[in-house]
């Protein structure tokens, strides 16, 4: 609760404080949460180990699973740094300068959040597929984009493009330009200004964006499943491998692979909370930034 300075001696009366309402609501919410949030997590663990620890270990060390893990890691190692760079560059351009069309750019950056991953995958097909804009040129030059790693990376880039940008833009907007302008007027270069003035102020938000971006890249299913071709042992990422095993009726194996991704999700949540304690991930930010704090104040 913001603004309550531990003054438990004087608290204004509020509604919903009667013990009955309070208890009923807390218990009700906890019970539903157990069904909706905890149970799915628990069932993954139970199913993964349903055939014993040995089967579990055999499933996650199977060559196809290891290859899928490798594909997922490589995709993340390429896509996350690129989108981090994009996030920093777009935040710098949008918050440190005034130019016409800034708001439009903000909206366009957010577009991938509102588009179904399937639509994203289909859209990429019409750019790089045989039916697409560059399809003939690509196949004439024997460049394989779709049904190969580049396609998976491109689809992941699309889906996670806004993650870092949307953490940085509102924060850098709120921090203003004074510090950077002071550094620059004292003769610091652009890079020096960024690394020694801006970066220390945005590092937790940056890391927050990177962590969420990484989780989404590693877990992306819809967009990747359209462009990957789903070739076992070749173009399968871990989420796709989960689907493949599941449809092969290798339920324990599918849940074993899924348990790795679930573990990643839990780690992501822990890191997220730790970073939020350091002020990242502004709790007051709506899920989509239509109007970042500050911009509207400048142009009333």
């Amino acid at each position, binding site marked *: 609760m913001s603004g309550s300075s531990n003054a438990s001696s004087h608290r204004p009366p509020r*509604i*919903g404080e009667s013990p009955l309402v309070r208890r009923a609501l807390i218990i009700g919410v906890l019970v539903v949460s157990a069904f909706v949030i905890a149970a799915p997590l628990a069932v993954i663990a139970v199913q993964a180990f349903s055939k014993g620890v040995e089967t579990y270990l055999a499933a996650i060390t199977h060559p196809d699973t290891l290859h899928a893990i490798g594909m997922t890691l490589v995709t993340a190692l390429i896509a996350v740094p690129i989108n981090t760079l994009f996030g920093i560059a777009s935040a710098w351009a949008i918050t440190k300068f005034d130019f016409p069309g800034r708001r439009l750019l903000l909206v366009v950056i957010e577009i991938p959040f509102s588009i179904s991953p399937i639509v994203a995958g289909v859209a990429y097909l019409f750019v790089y597929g045989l039916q697409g804009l560059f399809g003939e040129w690509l196949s004439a030059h024997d460049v394989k984009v779709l049904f190969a790693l580049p396609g998976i990376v491109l689809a992941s880039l699309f889906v996670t493009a806004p993650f870092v940008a949307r953490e940085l833009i509102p924060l850098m907007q709120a921090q203003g330009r004074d510090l950077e302008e002071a550094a620059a007027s004292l003769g610091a270069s652009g890079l020096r*200004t960024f690394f020694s003035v801006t970066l220390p102020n945005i590092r937790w938000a940056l890391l927050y964006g990177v962590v969420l971006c990484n989780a989404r890249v590693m877990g992306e299913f819809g967009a990747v499943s359209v462009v990957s071709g789903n070739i076992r042992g070749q173009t399968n990422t871990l989420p796709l491998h989960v689907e493949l095993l599941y449809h092969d009726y290798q339920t324990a194996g599918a849940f074993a692979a899924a348990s790795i991704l679930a573990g990643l999700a839990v780690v992501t*949540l822990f890191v*997220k909370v730790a970073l939020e304690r350091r002020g990242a991930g502004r709790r007051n930010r709506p899920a*989509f930034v239509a109007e970042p704090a500050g911009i509207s104040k400048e142009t009333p």
Partner: protein
Amino acid sequence: MKRRPVLPGLKLTLGFTLFYVALIVALPVAALLFKAASLGPAEYWAIVSSPRAVASYRVTVLSALGATVFNLVFGLALAWVLTRYRFPGRRILDAVVDLPFALPTAVAGIALTALFAPSGWFGAPLAELGIKVAYTPLGIMVAMTFTSLPFIVRTVQPVLEDLDPTLEEAALSLGASDSAIFARVVLPLLAPALLAGVSLSFARSLGEFGAIIFIAGNQPMSTEITALLAFIRLEEYDYQAAAAIASVLLITAFAMLAITNILQARALRYTRKG
């Protein structure tokens, strides 16, 4: 106030940003719309108004509505409990609310299917009551509910935290009951945030794919969602139909984005004034 642009890097960062947005975001979206437009109005209409497509819109929209209504009630209760009460486990609950965003959708899909399958933890007792969830539209609703759960909680929570306590104090001192105050003082103040959360939640449900395809029966005309139909057309090498159906989803997403932006701008104005 005049400002001299003393900071370096505009050309580099803006250039990179525009190039990247054009290549990664705008180009594929334009290619899809171009492909769909190349069909011609009659053919396009025939595809998007085919009975199978219309059935897919129906099940997608109805399931998304059901999921959103559930999340409206549960999300509000969750946000209320998290901001108003102190109890053991509150911080953990606050953290795990985001699990549906962190958990890959395919993983959520197989987990929910295992839970709600006729032999599952929830599926078995429900089957005894005669309720089938997995492989029915109800299953689609369950998957949508899970994947869009955090939206309403996270849009309402900050507004609840900032709610001025003196409003309730004043209403209480005038003798109003708790439920009357909730309905006539608190709820109207939360309404803009709730509405924004509802539109986000609904939009997400319309586009969801990964979590749904495992638990839905994927039967044409009954449990086939629109995103899956686009995917199926693609696998049948019917690129025209895939483009047309994907464009319906895309245009719907843009409409929802516009609605959400308007609602959120209103919600922000509202809280600032408040």
